[in-house]
């Protein structure tokens, strides 16, 4: 008898969902997390006031050079002295890039993975996102359509808690929302003016995974409403934003079916050729370096798109000499992210005698309009903008004056600034890939990731247009002092939306997974992290990983019950 009914590799955004759903189907589940345990009462620092933060909460420059030389430049707004333990040390977890390319692999190895550090923007993919590949003959067709995943979005939204407005946009479908964070007065004005000048464009409230009208189900997990601290990158003592740590993993735990294992780095998934099934996983203990084997009837890979691809590539056998479930040679290919680096900001007049109270954890969103409501574009697909309009404020001393006048200027009424930045879709390209480094290994003997990812002309052209559009919208809104830096594309991986390394499709020759996130090659192996994405859309993807994970578990559990696998 196997040790477990199911093993879930990874405890982050999607792994938490796999664990919860598998446990609630009555299966005995082990979650293998490669990092140490996060204990909120010890590790959260959201209640640390400014005056208890060391050195303006800056990590020392020497320490950045030694340990955070990728993480810090990649995500400086969130990597601070007080929460640096949420981020990997680059010298302990190195990776390589092919000459002439760059990649940002930004990570946290611990309970709940990046679900405790994410920026919580939560949008559904729309009908167009599932058909674009087919219509444009790019990549491969999604084997799923929006109507099939829609009820699963409903399901995960209700549990997670998404604050959003029902805006009635077909390209960004509404969901089971809790009340959205109200727009600022300047944002309302910006919305009115932009929507009047550009009838196909909308300015809406950001949809974020924050509880604003707590449900009984959420309260039972100890969660409560967002307190508008906006200290989310430091953890949330109120458990108000969705994370595996406070939502899915506790739900899994209370079934009595969960075994949580920390410091377990999966090195391979074992395959039995005779039965054509995976039988379990081999791990190395991050602290003791001891090797262990856990057996199970099912394996769910939720290690994140890069790590899941690496695990498959490391799992070689005579049946799969190029890596487990990789008969298609698509594992590690089609690596995508979103692309930013274009936007604008400017001052909006008329609100100088107003301000805000509280610190909202989101802002505005301008959903994709390119090739949706506007069709004259020199590029395919599109982008959405994230942003906001808030009092300019000033705490950095970059305003003129000294003495009482300068001091009081910080609390005085002042101008408001609108700022918007694009998140664009990256087209799938099989040459954008991660492979195992041929010679270099980490301190546990695992081959390093070797990245070879570049943007295409479509992304470059799109972002140039996104910059122009941003300026045009700020102009239409009557903004002054408009700034828009030349487009400077983010490094691939920098948006921390990496996806696509084991894409789903209809044909086993060209895809790794079927429409249920089940590998074509091995029936009891599933991957429900970002790996399955056949295209990136332009929406922040976590909500989609949640929905596909829940849907996939239902399918797998049914197959187990029917003894098909």
């Amino acid at each position, binding site marked *: 008898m196997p040790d477990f009914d199911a093993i879930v590799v990874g405890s982050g955004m999607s792994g938490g969902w796999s664990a919860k759903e598998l446990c609630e189907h009555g299966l005995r589940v082990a979650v293998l997390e490669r990092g140490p345990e996060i204990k909120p009462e010890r590790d959260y620092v959201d*209640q640390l*006031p*400014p*005056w208890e*933060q*060391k*050195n*303006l909460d*800056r*990590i*020392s*420059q*020497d320490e950045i*050079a030694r340990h955070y030389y990728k993480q810090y430049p990649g995500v400086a707004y969130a990597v601070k002295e007080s929460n640096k333990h949420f981020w990997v040390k680059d010298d302990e977890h190195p990776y390589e890039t092919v000459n002439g390319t760059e990649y940002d692999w930004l990570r946290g190895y611990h309970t709940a993975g990046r679900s405790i550090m994410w920026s919580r923007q939560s949008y559904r993919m729309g009908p167009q996102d599932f058909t674009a590949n087919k219509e444009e003959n790019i990549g491969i067709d999604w084997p799923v359509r929006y109507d099939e995943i829609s009820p699963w979005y409903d399901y995960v939204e209700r549990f997670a808690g998404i604050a959003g407005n029902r805006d009635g946009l077909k390209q960004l479908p509404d969901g089971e929302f809790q009340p959205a*964070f*109200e*727009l*600022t*007065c300047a*944002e309302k004005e910006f919305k009115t003016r932009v929507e009047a000048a550009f009838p196909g464009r909308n300015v809406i409230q950001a949809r974020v995974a924050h509880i604003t009208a707590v449900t009984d189900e959420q309260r039972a997990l100890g969660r409560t409403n967002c*307190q*508008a*601290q906006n200290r989310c990158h430091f953890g949330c003592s109120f458990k108000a934003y969705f994370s595996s740590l406070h939502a899915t993993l506790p739900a899994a735990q209370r079934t009595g079916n969960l075994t949580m294992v920390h410091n377990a780095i999966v090195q391979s998934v074992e395959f039995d050729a005779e039965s054509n099934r995976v039988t379990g996983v081999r791990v190395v203990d991050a602290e003791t370096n001891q090797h262990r084997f856990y057996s199970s009837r099912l394996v769910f890979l939720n290690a994140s798109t890069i790590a899941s691809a690496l695990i498959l590539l490391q799992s070689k056998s005579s049946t799969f000499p190029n890596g487990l479930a990789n008969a298609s040679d698509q594992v590690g290919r089609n690596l995508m992210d979103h692309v930013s680096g274009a936007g604008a900001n400017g001052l909006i007049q008329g609100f100088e*005698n*107003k*301000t*805000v*109270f*509280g*610190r*909202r954890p989101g802002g505005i969103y301008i959903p994709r309009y390119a090739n949706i409501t506007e069709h004259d574009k020199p590029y395919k697909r599109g982008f959405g903008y994230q942003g906001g309009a808030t009092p300019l404020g000033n*705490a*950095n*001393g*970059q*305003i*003129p*004056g*000294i*003495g*009482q006048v*300068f*001091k*009081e200027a*910080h*609390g005085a*009424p002042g101008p408001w600034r609108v700022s918007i930045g694009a998140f664009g879709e990256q087209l799938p390209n099989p040459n954008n890939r991660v492979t195992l480094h041929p010679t270099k290994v980490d301190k546990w003997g695992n081959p390093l990731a070797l990245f070879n990812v570049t943007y295409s002309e479509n992304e470059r052209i799109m972002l140039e247009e996104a910059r122009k559009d941003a300026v045009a919208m700020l102009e239409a809104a009557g903004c002054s002092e408009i700034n828009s830096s030349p487009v400077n594309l983010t490094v691939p991986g920098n948006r921390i939306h990496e996806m696509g390394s084991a894409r789903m499709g209809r044909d086993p020759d060209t895809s790794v997974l079927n429409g249920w996130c089940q590998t074509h090659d091995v029936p009891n192996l599933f991957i429900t992290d970002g790996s399955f994405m056949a295209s990136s859309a332009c929406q922040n993807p976590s909500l989609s990983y949640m929905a596909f994970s829940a849907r996939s578990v239902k399918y797998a559990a049914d197959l187990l019950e029917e003894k098909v696998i």
Partner: protein
Amino acid sequence: MKTRREVLQSLIVSIGGASVLNACGGIARVVPSSSMRFYSDQELALVSRISDLIIPRTDTPGALDVKVPGFLDSLMTEWANPETKNNHHEELKELTRMLGEGFATLPPDTSEQRLAQFDYEAFNGRPISYSGYRSLKSLITQAYFASEDGALQEQKWVAVPGRWDPCVEIQ
């Protein structure tokens, strides 16, 4: 309202209490301090004077009340790498040159006028040659608002707002 001397005393407490306060004719001077880890005595006198002029005590505490110079000394010691440390020393050297050697010991009215003019130039004239000043001003301001008094009294920082109000009339 504290006297200037009391303000300076609190500054000294902030830097470890090992300094000796020497005031003459309304001109304050901080003399040898074994507890400063980064600033020389001359640098400390300059940073202290500029901090006090930029963010004086009003009906709320000023930069010296909340020990901004000691904070910046720690910041430079613990956060900055050798290159940043060196740049900061160089910037203070340049500031001393631009403001005049005796700036820290000028009578208050004179130094205030001098710095006000200098600040005006830094924000309206040729910002590049004033980058050292602007960088110091930024650090002083950040350090002030990171203090308990600066955050709570001046910035009205609220730990747990509890709600989001997107449009509040300023009274």
